[in-house]
Structure formats: structure tokens, C-alpha cells
């Protein structure tokens, strides 16, 4: 007896464990949902990317006493030296590769020979000026600023003294031009690897001579020799302004003073490394260390929702895509809604029990189980090719309508079935025809349920991608008509990812999509809640 009691207790304990496991797994569904939605929202709202750039994350406001100004409409905070050089030597014709704008680029400068023009020229080109053909020269600072204010996408470089007393309608931006140059011998290939990058955190150590050999970073067996810039020279001043104390004498290996020409010193000293201006380092052909850092900021901004996409979504926002998605939803519900509700009315109110009804139900069930890619194939075959609608809104919406038809039919059926027979009988008894009864009494009574079904169906349609990719096309401009190719939010997300355009933008679009989907689903849920409360009353 005692034996069995002990067995019983053990069993109870096991059962408690089992129930605990079941509870934990159930709670896990909520955690999974929260993880997915939370992650998408977090990545959609904030971005945090690893950056790899040879430039130190510090922008000088007035490098060598030169101001860099851009037209106020341009969304740009800073440039790096190579971008500036590229702008003034015809490498860029618009801003798309540099910032989020895609306007044409107009570089402005003071005429060579004008008072003070030399300092701007020296900042960009050093000793050998090579102005690009696109550069527009102005004789005076006043004329230059006027041109700058009146031309969107323009940029100007001019000496600070020339700005004195003027109130430019332009924005001043910073320039990143501090790099870490290394002796070419230190960058040589060893076992098909070479020293290429270093994290910003390790940089300080390297400039203090730790590690002591390049071999520790994957380079050749060569001692690391940090070189300090000439004290009181322009480089030292720039570093001091940046808050960087360039190579510190520490750990017993005092950094050597490189003398006047830092880059020449780095080039001639085996294993040398030190700060330099990008212009000089590039001019001397020195290898630059790439610096790994992390950059964070806001990802989804209001601007993103309100602007048109440009350059396949590289620039601009998603306003036209949102509008296209809306028109797609309206058209789809416009097609599938009436048809689906009518089908449900037939199935509930008219059809007699029997093989025909079973067949029709089987049709709905089967249609619901068909994967979206098959709908995509069918839509492409029939709507796009056979009926000749082409890739466009109409083909896409017809395909989607077929997809969401079963959802609408089933939920409308459920809604119609809950209408009490007393209403129907009363209406018929008052002399109304069957049709009048259905449309004036039964359908209105079932309308909240029908609406819920429509909302759920729309929630499904808005996230569909596979069926749309080859029926609705992928043009991101505003759809001009039923036959114009247009891109929906979901397609945009996929294409941003698949074409390797931008992961951040894919996430901010996904945030918008998930908000829309959740809104539809929660609205449907609230409607159901209200309905059941009414029914209870």
C-alpha cells in the first residue's frame, strides 16, 4: 500500500512537471510574437550598423580655414575627403551615391586667382589643382552665395574670411579628412592576408605601440612604429581640435616626431603608422587603415512615409508604394468582397443539402489550401498573358481576389448562420420575398461578421508577396491606371532585400507593413468582441 502511495506521489510530481512544460510552451507563443514584432519595430525604428571607413569619425567645421556650404534643401551633414575630391573632379553627377537625395550636383567655387581662392583649392587638391569640368566658378563670394542659394543640390567651398559679414542662405557642413596611414611594407600580403582594418577601440593601442609587431594584426614581422605629427603643425592642430592626442609616448616607446611632412616620414620608415590628412596620404599613395565603428540613429522617419521613392528605393521614401498598396486593397476588396458575400449567401440561404453543396464547399476548402505561388503562376498565365492585362494593378488584384475569396466566403457563411431563424421567418411571414428577406434583413443583421471577415482577408492580402511578384509588377511610381505596373509594400520589402539595396530600408518598410497588418487584425478582433457582447445582450 505504501509502495503504491509513493508511486502515486511520483506520478503527481511528473504530472506537475508536464503541466508546467505545457504552460511554458503556451507562454512561449506570446514570447515568440513579442520577439518578432518587437525585433521588426526595433530594427525599423533604429538602425545600428557596423561602419568601415578609413576616416576618423570627426568632422572639421573649418578645415584649413575653408567653409563648405551646401544648398539648404540638401540633407547632408558631412562629407569625407574623397567625396569632396570626387565632387570637384567630376566623379559624381548627382547626390544619390553620397546622401539620401537624388538631386543633380552642382559644385561651386571661387575663380582661381580671386582673393582667398587659393586656400580652398589647396584644401581639395593640394599642390596640383585639377578642377572638374562641372565646377562653376564665381568671381566674388557674393555671386557664389547667391548661386548657391538659388540652385538646389549645389555645394560651395570658399575661404572663411570671405564669408565675413555675409548671411548665407545655406548650411555649413563638416569635412572628415583625418585618416590613419601606414607604411606600405606593413600592409604587405602575408599568407594571402594583410593588415586592412582595425576597430576604433584598438586604434588607440596601436598608436601607443601595442601590439609591438604588425604580425599580431595579420601582417608581416615588422615592429609597429607610431609617428607623431610635427608639433604645432596643422595636422597636430586638427588632431587637437578633434580631441585626439596623437601617438602618445607611452609604454616606454616614445612616438617619433615625423617632422614637417608626416606622409613622407611614414612612407620612408618601415612599420610606421600615424595620423595624416587624407589628401596627403592619398597623394603619397600610402595604404590607409580602415576603421571599424558602429553607427546608430533613427531609421523610420516621417519623411520616409511622405516622400516618393527614387533609384529603386535607394533614396526617397515609400509614399507612392503606400498609395499603390491602398488602391490594391480597395480594388481587391471591391472584387472579392461582393463575390465572396454572394457566394456565402447562396451557400447558406439557397443551396440545398446534397452533393452539389458538398462540392462547392470542397471547392472553397481546396482554394484556401492552394499556396500563393500557384496563384502567382495562374495569375501570370491567365490574367497577364491570356487576357492580356499585362503586369499591373488589375492582374495583381484579380489574383489576390481569388486568394482571399475562401476567407471571405467562410467568415460570411459563419456570420449568416448566426442570424436567428426568427428574423427570417418573421420577414417572410410579413410577405417579403426571399430576396427581400435576404438583403434587407439577414445581410444587415450579419454585417458585423461579414465586415470582420473582410478585415481579416485584407490583412492577409496586404502581406502577400509571392502571388504579386509576377502579376502586379514592381514599378515603384504611382499607379496611373488599372494596367500600370505597381509595387506593394510587401514586394518592396522583398526587393529591397533581394536586390541588395538596403536592409535598413527593408526594416523600416516592414515596420509600416506590420503596423498595417496588426491594425487590420486588431480591428477585426474588436469587431468580434463587440458582436459577441451584443449577442450576449
Amino acid at each position, binding site marked *: 500500500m505504501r509502495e503504491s502511495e509513493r508511486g502515486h506521489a511520483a506520478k503527481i510530481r511528473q*504530472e506537475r512537471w*508536464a503541466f508546467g512544460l505545457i*504552460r511554458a*510552451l*503556451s*507562454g*512561449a*507563443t*506570446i514570447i*515568440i*510574437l513579442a*520577439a*518578432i*514584432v518587437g*525585433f*521588426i519595430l526595433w530594427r525599423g525604428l533604429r538602425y545600428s550598423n557596423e561602419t568601415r571607413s578609413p576616416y576618423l569619425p570627426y568632422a572639421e567645421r573649418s578645415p584649413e580655414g575653408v567653409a563648405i556650404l551646401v544648398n539648404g534643401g540638401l540633407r547632408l551633414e558631412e562629407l569625407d575627403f574623397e567625396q569632396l575630391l570626387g565632387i570637384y573632379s567630376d566623379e559624381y553627377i548627382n547626390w544619390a551615391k553620397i546622401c539620401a537625395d537624388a538631386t543633380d550636383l552642382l559644385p561651386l567655387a571661387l575663380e582661381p586667382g580671386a582673393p582667398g581662392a587659393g586656400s580652398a583649392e589647396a584644401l581639395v587638391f593640394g599642390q596640383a589643382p585639377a578642377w572638374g569640368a562641372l565646377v562653376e566658378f564665381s568671381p566674388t563670394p557674393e555671386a557664389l552665395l547667391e548661386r548657391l542659394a538659388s540652385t538646389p543640390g549645389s555645394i560651395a567651398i570658399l575661404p572663411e574670411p570671405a564669408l565675413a559679414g555675409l548671411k548665407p542662405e545655406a548650411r555649413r557642413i563638416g569635412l572628415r579628412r583625418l585618416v590613419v596611414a601606414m607604411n606600405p611594407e606593413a600592409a604587405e600580403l602575408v599568407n594571402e592576408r594583410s593588415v586592412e582594418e582595425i576597430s576604433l577601440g584598438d586604434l588607440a593601442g596601436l598608436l601607443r605601440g601595442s601590439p609591438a609587431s604588425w604580425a599580431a594584426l595579420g601582417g608581416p614581422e615588422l615592429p609597429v612604429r607610431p609617428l607623431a605629427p610635427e608639433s604645432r603643425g596643422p595636422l597636430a592642430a586638427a588632431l587637437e581640435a578633434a580631441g585626439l592626442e596623437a601617438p602618445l609616448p607611452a609604454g616606454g616607446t616614445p612616438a617619433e616626431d615625423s617632422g614637417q611632412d608626416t606622409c613622407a616620414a611614414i612612407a620612408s620608415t618601415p612599420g610606421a603608422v600615424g595620423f595624416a590628412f587624407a589628401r596627403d596620404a592619398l597623394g603619397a599613395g600610402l595604404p590607409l587603415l580602415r576603421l571599424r565603428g558602429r553607427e546608430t540613429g533613427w531609421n523610420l522617419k516621417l519623411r520616409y512615409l511622405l516622400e516618393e521613392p527614387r533609384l529603386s528605393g535607394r533614396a526617397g521614401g515609400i509614399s507612392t508604394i503606400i498609395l499603390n498598396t491602398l488602391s490594391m486593397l480597395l480594388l481587391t476588396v471591391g472584387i472579392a468582397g461582393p463575390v*465572396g458575400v*454572394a*457566394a456565402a*449567401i*447562396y*451557400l447558406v440561404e*439557397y443551396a440545398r443539402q446534397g452533393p452539389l453543396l458538398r*462540392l*462547392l464547399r*470542397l*471547392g472553397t476548402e*481546396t*482554394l484556401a*489550401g*492552394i*499556396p500563393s*505561388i*500557384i496563384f*502567382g*503562376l*495562374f495569375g*501570370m*498565365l*491567365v490574367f497577364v498573358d491570356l487576357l492580356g492585362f499585362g503586369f499591373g494593378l488589375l492582374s495583381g488584384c484579380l489574383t489576390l481576389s481569388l486568394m482571399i*475569396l475562401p476567407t471571405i*466566403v467562410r467568415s460570411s457563411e459563419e456570420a449568416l448562420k448566426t442570424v436567428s431563424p426568427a428574423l427570417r421567418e418573421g420577414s417572410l411571414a410579413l410577405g417579403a420575398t*426571399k*430576396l427581400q428577406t435576404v438583403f434587407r434583413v439577414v445581410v444587415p443583421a450579419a454585417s458585423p461578421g461579414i465586415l470582420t471577415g473582410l478585415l481579416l482577408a485584407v*490583412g*492577409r492580402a*496586404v*502581406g502577400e508577396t*509571392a502571388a504579386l511578384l*509576377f502579376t502586379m509588377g514592381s514599378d515603384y511610381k504611382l499607379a496611373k491606371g488599372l494596367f500600370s505596373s505597381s509595387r506593394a509594400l510587401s514586394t518592396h*520589402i*522583398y526587393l529591397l*532585400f533581394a536586390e541588395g539595396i538596403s536592409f535598413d530600408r527593408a*526594416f523600416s518598410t*516592414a515596420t509600416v*507593413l*506590420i503596423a498595417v497588418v*496588426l491594425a*487590420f*487584425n486588431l480591428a477585426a478582433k474588436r469587431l468580434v468582441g463587440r458582436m459577441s457582447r451584443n449577442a450576449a445582450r
Partner: protein
Amino acid sequence: MKRRRIAERGIEGLLVFCGALSILAVLFITLFLFLRGAPLFKKVPLTEFLFSTRWEPTAADPGYGILSFIVGSLLVTGLSLVFAVPVGLSVGVYLAELAQQRFSRAIRTAVELLAGIPSVIYGLFGIAVIAGLNRSAFGGTGYGVLSASIILAIMTLPTIINVTEVSLRAVPRELREGSLALGATQWQTIIRVLVPSARSGIAAGVILGMGRALGETMAVLMVGGNAPIMPKGLNGMVRTLTMNIITDMSYAKDDHLTSLFATGIVLFVFILALNLVVQIALKRSLSGAEGAAGA
């Protein structure tokens, strides 16, 4: 009066048409898929199409073998069920038998919202999180069978949970009370009485989820790796039938395009077969419940 009768007849006709539209759509989809895809089998024998792994549709001597994709589809789907079924069953049992109202409402909302999340978003999540975790745990690229099936498991959970809960609730009270009255514990009642009597319904739910996993395109496309080879192990890259269709669709021509429709046929046949099984299982579960209630 007569005019009105005619109008009513007309509207009724319209309703009949709408009611028949679903079945018509199914028929048309079947018809067009076969008309467009079957001509491939004049050039490539069906056995070669199904049982060869050589997929080189753009080579000078094109090969159209989709065995690796069939295996990939089945592997990914099967593994996703291995993850999803125990969890789905547990949650279904919890919702039907154990949960207090407050918790069950929260879980049900979560499940409904999970079901509503678009597959392309699951794909993004898969790339950023699942593939990353997979990479740090097992090495490799992180894109492959395992990542794809984890994502699919999450996507099929709602289906399995819902159907399990509904079929457990359909088990007549008498069975539950009878078992408890005979001295069985709650756990014994659930495991020995309720789950067995709801088994065809639960099976239907699992198969329904299987159909959904088999037909899923975007999410697996984004995390599966998409290499057109036989998957090498559980962490190897995989291409499923759906991925094969959507990957090549944008540029395929002539026989290549036909072969994609033929791939569609294979997928469609799988799905129809699963649907048929679901219909039979559901019918049996309903009649079983009725029979038990009658007895």
C-alpha cells in the same frame, strides 16, 4: 409581379455563379497549370523530371531534374513539423483544457496575430535573427534547412494550435467526466482519453500546417540559401519547389519556363493530396465525435 420574379431569378443565378466560383477557380487553376506545364514531359520523361538531381535549365544540354527540390521541400516541411507539433499540441491542450480565461485570451490573441504576420516579414526576421543564431551555434552561412524549418515551424504553429483546440473542445463532455469519475487524473484524462478521441482532428490540423509549410515561398526563399543542389545535412543550403519556381520565374524562357509550371504541377499535386487527406480526417473526426455523443 412577373418582372420581379424574373429579377429575383436573375439575382439567384448570379448568387449561384458566385457560389460556384471557388470550385471553378480550382478547376481552372488545375487545367491551366497542366496545360502549360505538361508539354515538358514530351521532351523530358516524367521519371527523369522527378528522379534526377541535374537541374541545369540554361545549359547547352539542359537538365530538368527536380529531385533535390522535392527532397528539400519534404525535408524542410518535415523538420518544421518536428518543431511545431509538440509545441502546437501543448498550446492547444492548454487552451482547451487548462487555461484560465485571462491567459487563454492573451495566448489566443498572440496566436491570431502570429497567423496574420506576412511571410516576407518572417523572412526578414529569419535572416536577421534565426540565421544569425544558427551561424553562431553551428557555423556555416546560417542559411539552410534548419533556419528555414524553424521559421516554418513558427508559421505553422497557429494552424496546429487552432485545430487542436477546436477538436479537443469537440470531444463530448461525457468522455471527460467519465474518465475523471473513474479516478483518472487530469493528465491521464488528457493523454489517454481526450487526445486519442480528438486524434483525427489533430491529424487534420497537422496536415493543414504541413500544406501551409510546403507551399510557403517568401520566408524560406529568404533563409533557405537557395542553392539548386541536394541539401547536405541539416545545415546545408536548400532549395524547395516553391523557391525553384520564384527564383527562375523572372528570366525563364521556353522549355525552362514550362519546367517551372511543371514544378508547379508537382507542388499542386502534393497540396491537393494533403487537402484530400484533411477532408477525410475532418469528416471522420466530426462523425467520430457525433458517434461518441450518440453512444
